């Protein structure tokens, strides 16, 4: 049978790969294969579940420090979950960190924010936090534009991380160190990023949390944003026993890979983590009013629900973007109550942004709505390798 002319035409279409892309991808694949062949590189990491409270070190280019929230219990199926699904396009790194302290202390997690553009962080933004690891290198460094523009040497903590902030461990979870020693180099069309590597083969249920820019993770374009009750946006993709979500925590894109963990449990853990994991900025930056982890989260999300218009200017927001709809609603002088807010889905073409739809009750009781676009500000550039990965296992 003769070929359909349309089929012939369609088969002649197609874009050739650009040479830069092909070269970068080849380098990525070489690194991937080398990593698979050599499972241990970089800084030594504590044995899983071993020793005193696990803690966190600033991210390094090689040998990403990883802390896991772990369990004393059950086994479960062995999972194999890729931690990253590389994406191309320009990249601003959302670098984040988490500290987990087993038992008594709890968890500290810090999120770094700022602005980076084409590899140069121009605004370190609020102070970022990092904690020290029990066995790894530690560092406390205030972020600066200069430091964030510096590429860290392998094994050297990336500068730009501030003091740790202890927050509570999500109920039902304990922490252990995970062994994710081999960074994965991800080539993109614009950047080359080093990401945490092979935390894939971990026995038992697990939740991996990777702060990352949505540009890189691939999830944003394979998931449909959804809304959780607490205002956390997610997008989710089922992939066998593994589900990935892109979660928004204080303006931080976080890729969550849950394996053999029920949705409800993941939701509960994430909500709990989100409630506790947002690091307050230092007083000097003044970016997050109020301080305290809960207050910081409230500053990011809560005031939109409960506060007045002025409270909409938060660490995770662009004041101008927020004030514009406020003014449009006649709220610049305050006095109105924001009755509620919900996330409005964003697209992959809007990296570093999110939208709220804000419902406002005016003094006279009138209800108005406005859409608020928030631009996130990231502190680190992806090429620094400032990745951090945390895994959680249920007790």
């Amino acid at each position, binding site marked *: 049978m003769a070929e359909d002319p349309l089929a012939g035409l369609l088969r002649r*279409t197609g874009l050739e790969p650009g040479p830069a892309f092909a070269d970068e991808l080849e380098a990525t694949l070489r690194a991937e294969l080398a990593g698979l062949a050599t499972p241990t590189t970089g800084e030594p990491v504590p044995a899983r579940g071993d020793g005193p409270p696990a803690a966190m070190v600033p991210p390094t280019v090689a040998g990403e420090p990883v802390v896991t929230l772990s369990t004393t219990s059950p086994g479960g199926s062995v999972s194999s979950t890729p931690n990253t699904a590389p994406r191309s396009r320009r990249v601003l790194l959302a670098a984040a960190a988490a500290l987990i302290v087993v038992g008594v202390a709890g968890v500290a997690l810090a999120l770094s924010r700022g602005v980076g553009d084409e590899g140069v962080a121009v605004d370190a933004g609020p102070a970022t936090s990092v904690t020290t690891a029990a066995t790894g290198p530690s560092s406390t460094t205030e972020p600066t534009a200069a430091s964030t523009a510096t590429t860290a040497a392998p094994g050297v903590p990336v500068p730009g991380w501030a003091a740790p902030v202890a927050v509570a461990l999500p109920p039902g979870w304990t922490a252990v160190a995970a062994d994710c020693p081999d960074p994965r180099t991800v080539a993109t069309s614009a950047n080359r990023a080093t990401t945490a590597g092979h935390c894939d083969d971990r026995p038992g249920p697990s939740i991996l949390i990777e702060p990352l820019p949505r540009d890189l993770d691939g999830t944003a374009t394979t998931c449909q944003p959804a809304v959780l009750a607490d205002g956390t946006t997610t997008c989710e993709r089922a992939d066998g026993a593994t589900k990935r979500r892109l979660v928004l925590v204080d303006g931080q894109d976080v890729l969550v890979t849950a394996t053999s963990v029920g949705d409800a449990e993941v939701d509960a853990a994430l909500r709990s983590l989100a409630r506790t994991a947002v690091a307050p900025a230092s007083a000097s930056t003044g970016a997050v009013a109020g301080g305290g982890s809960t207050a910081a989260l409230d500053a990011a999300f809560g005031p939109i629900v409960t506060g007045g218009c002025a409270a909409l200017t938060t660490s995770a927001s662009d004041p101008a973007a927020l004030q514009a709809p406020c003014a449009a609603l006649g709220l610049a002088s305050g006095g109105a109550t924001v009755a509620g807010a919900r996330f409005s889905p964003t697209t992959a073409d809007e990296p570093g942004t999110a939208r709220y739809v804000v419902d406002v009750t005016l003094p006279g009781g009138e209800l108005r709505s406005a859409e608020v676009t928030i631009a996130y500000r990231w502190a680190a550039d992806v090429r620094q390798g400032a990745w951090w990965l945390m895994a959680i296992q249920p007790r």
Partner: protein
Amino acid sequence: MVAEQEPPVTGPPPDPSADRPAEPPFAVDTPAGFVAFYRASVGEVHRYLSRLAGGDRALAEDLTQEAFLALARQAGAGRVTRVDVGWVIVAGRRRFLDHIRSQGREARRLEQVAVEVVAPAAEPDWSTVDPHAALAQLGRLPEDQRTALVLRYVDDLSTAAVATQLDRSVAATESLLARARRELARLVSEARRG
């Protein structure tokens, strides 16, 4: 044309048998072999995925990268030792289908209530259409229509197989294909008229 083979996910390769096709030509169980395969196949993989992506180069690159990385992980774990280009293409296609499935629910719901009022369009002589122009118009099609066309006419899947891939009924897929073809014809004709 892409063979409708699914990349093995786990486990050893099936036992060879007399009626099986020849062993895939590329050994990827060594880095050198893998790179040789990559260099030989990246162009075809990218071209294919760029059709699915409707000419969106960034998306095509993403899909290409993800597909090759998937193979690298499988090869590194010893689960795959020999492949042909179809393995990577199917892996990339899976990722693309994940994407449209997750995004397609709402669109399909709306589609179900929409009243189709599409005037029949005379098809152009496809053999005279410039491939670059065709790709540009392919990119203007709704994702599900574009995907259906590629699966049906590039991969040469049956309508039933396309329906399975798109998680639709055969009847709905027939309708989708018909609409996609009409719409592409309309767009190409419009573009030609300037």
